[in-house]
């Protein structure tokens, strides 16, 4: 038989009604991957982009060179931030179901990425998040009420009613505005980092995209510019296996890890267990120090799993087994850190229950306050004149006229 060319269509491991199958996932034992010097040459650390950096082992013990040896107090804060993120998500999901807001996106199962990374960075480092990084806001201490007001597009919405829910921003907290267009923030983060280097400041930029979004041209632009100018930036691919209904094979994950694209561009690439709080913290510290000391950018692939639907408009039961998430081999980041703390003798089921209860109350109280400032359906509304502001710094004549026309139209 003569050989013929063929078209390969990536096939997902399991579909609705089938047994979850994660045999495609390549992992390394906890502690198995050595931690190189932060100034190591890219060519000497190629294994980091293929192996999987893990710190927490199956007995909940931190092992190996990547153990960041965090203080117990920091571990407890990390647990608190992750749990708060999850409880906040649950409550906002319910609010959307009740019609109080139009849209929501949970980060169930991915909490360690934002929380551990947020804690490993400095407060002045500039963050360019994607839409599933709400943990960054929790770490940097933005009151939940403010986030809720954005979700409600109410009178205290930081975006003045202009953005889809979850597209927050926070200039003072150094968290960049989220765009609905994917990966656009990646080259912007690199440009921000280039500017920091031009100005001789030692702040770094950090950005996040999903593995699906790595298919966009802006991924290439960001990687190339970061590498060419050795920009002080950390570029993160959160590989949660799913881009809405499309699994990571269609973004190119079948043949090679996403992290391996780092060395392809001449920059460090690290593949990390994204559900291992300690491992994520450790690789972020490593990459941040590398960037801050002029040794260049790092691409980090966080291997994790999108536990919830893509958004409140999505139904994953149509394209994956219902119990996929429960069978994910890398487990639940909250549970893993909790068990680690218990193993250390620094946490207990009782304390965990008490913390969860406290955070539930905090979220409920915050919600009660936020809805006082209005919801999509009830209460006070933003002034419609705001629609015409901030298109330009100064409002041009043509927009003044249109604002006047709207006022007339509305009889005010």
């Amino acid at each position, binding site marked *: 038989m003569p050989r013929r060319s063929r078209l390969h269509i990536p096939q997902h491991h399991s579909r609705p009604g089938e047994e979850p199958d994660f045999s495609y996932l390549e992992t390394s034992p906890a502690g198995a991957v050595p931690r190189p010097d932060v100034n190591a040459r890219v060519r000497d650390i190629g294994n980091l982009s293929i192996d999987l950096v893990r710190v927490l082992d199956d007995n909940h013990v931190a092992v190996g060179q990547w153990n960041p040896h965090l203080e117990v107090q920091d571990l407890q804060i990390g647990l608190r931030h992750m749990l708060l993120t999850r409880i906040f998500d649950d409550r906002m999901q319910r609010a959307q179901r009740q019609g109080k807001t139009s849209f929501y996106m949970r980060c169930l199962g991915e909490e360690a990425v934002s929380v551990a990374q947020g804690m490993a960075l400095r407060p002045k480092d500039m963050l360019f998040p994607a839409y599933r990084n709400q943990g960054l806001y929790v770490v940097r201490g933005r009151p939940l009420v403010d986030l809720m007001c954005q979700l409600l597009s109410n009178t205290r919405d930081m975006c003045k009613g202009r953005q889809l829910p979850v597209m927050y921003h926070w200039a003072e907290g150094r968290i960049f505005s989220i765009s609905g267009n994917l990966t656009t923030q990646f080259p912007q983060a*690199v440009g921000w980092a280039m500017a920091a280097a031009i100005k001789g400041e030692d702040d770094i930029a950090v950005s996040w995209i999903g593995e699906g979004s790595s298919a966009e041209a802006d991924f290439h632009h960001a990687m190339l510019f970061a590498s060419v100018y050795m920009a002080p930036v950390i570029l993160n691919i959160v590989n949660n296996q799913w881009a809405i209904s499309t699994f990571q094979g269609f973004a190119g994950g079948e043949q090679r890890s996403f992290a391996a694209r780092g060395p392809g561009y001449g920059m460090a690439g690290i593949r990390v267990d994204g559900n291992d709080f300690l491992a994520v913290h450790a690789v972020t510290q490593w990459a941040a120090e590398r960037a801050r000391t002029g040794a260049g950018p790092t691409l980090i692939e966080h291997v994790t799993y999108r536990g919830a639907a893509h958004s409140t408009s999505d139904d994953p039961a149509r394209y994956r087994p219902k119990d996929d998430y429960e069978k994910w081999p890398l487990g639940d980041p909250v549970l893993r850190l909790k068990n680690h703390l218990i193993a250390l003798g620094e946490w207990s089921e009782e304390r965990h229950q008490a913390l969860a209860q406290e955070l539930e109350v905090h979220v409920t109280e915050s919600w009660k306050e936020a809805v006082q400032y209005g919801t999509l359906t009830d209460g006070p509304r933003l002034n419609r004149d705001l629609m015409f*502001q*901030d298109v330009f710094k100064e409002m041009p004549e043509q927009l003044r006229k249109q604002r006047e026309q709207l006022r007339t139209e509305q009889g005010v």
Partner: protein
Amino acid sequence: MPQMNMIQALNSAMDIMLARDPNVVMLGEDIGYFGGVFRVTDGLQKKYGEHRVLDTPIAEGGIVGAAIGMGVNGLRPVAEVQFADYIYPACDQIFSELARLRYRSAGDFWAPVTIRTPCGGGIRGGQTHSQSPEGIFTHVCGIKVVMPSTPYDAKGLLIAAIEDDDPVIFFEPKRLYNGPFDGDANKPAVPWSTHPKGEVPDGYYTVPIGKAEIVRKGSAVTMVAYGTMIYVCEAAARALGIDAEIIDVRSMVPLDTDTICTSVKKTGRCLIAHEATRFSGFGAELSATIQEECFWDLEAPIGRVAGWDTPYPHAFEWEYFPGPLRVAAALKAVMEAA
């Protein structure tokens, strides 16, 4: 006063801004060591260093994306896109990001980026080195769009653009780099050194964005144009001996409707000319606005003359270009109507 061509005037504008403001940086393909394929950034990297004038990879989307990040971090980037024909890979960063960042963040984030890009035909550039895509950018809310027609305006407008806190797309009509061009390629080239608008002050000055200029006073008809077409309009009116008032739009966004409409109300007739394709071109917006504002003063339908609705062909450059013959015919039609 010193004489400069448009290349020298633009170079002078950037030289002045790099010296005045340490946050001004330049980035683009071939702009640094080499000084740009049209020599517009010649000598700037040598004078201000590789950290202020950056050579970049061939990636317009990356150039603009990085420029936005630099702008957010306090710099005032001037990005060059080597030909306007190459700007399309950057359009998501321009349309969805640069133009709307201030709006979507309620004024908390913004990027004062200027994007310089040579446009227009008449240089034997074929369909990928001749386009005039300005109309596309005027349809995006949140960016300013300008195009000078003289060395004096080029320098003053570019300084104003760099100082502007809003993003500006700065189109450079490349056929005018070395001299005014009236659309007749058979005539010998006229250098800027013999033209009054080739007189350019050495120092700092600005030409305000948002102001049109009446380049020729007249009473019979208003001709509205910008870039290269200013000189074609002048030639056509001269050939027909018509006392035309010629307005250089200069700034498409924001548009100086007052200057344009005051003139049309006075003359009662109007011809709009641009090199870009006609259908949905910026002339359509001009025509609609003038019609709404000046309908009762118009004595004839508003005329439009433009490039054909085809790509810009290499072999038929002068048949494509809306030269003096086509403009004169359109002008005659506007004068003879009603």
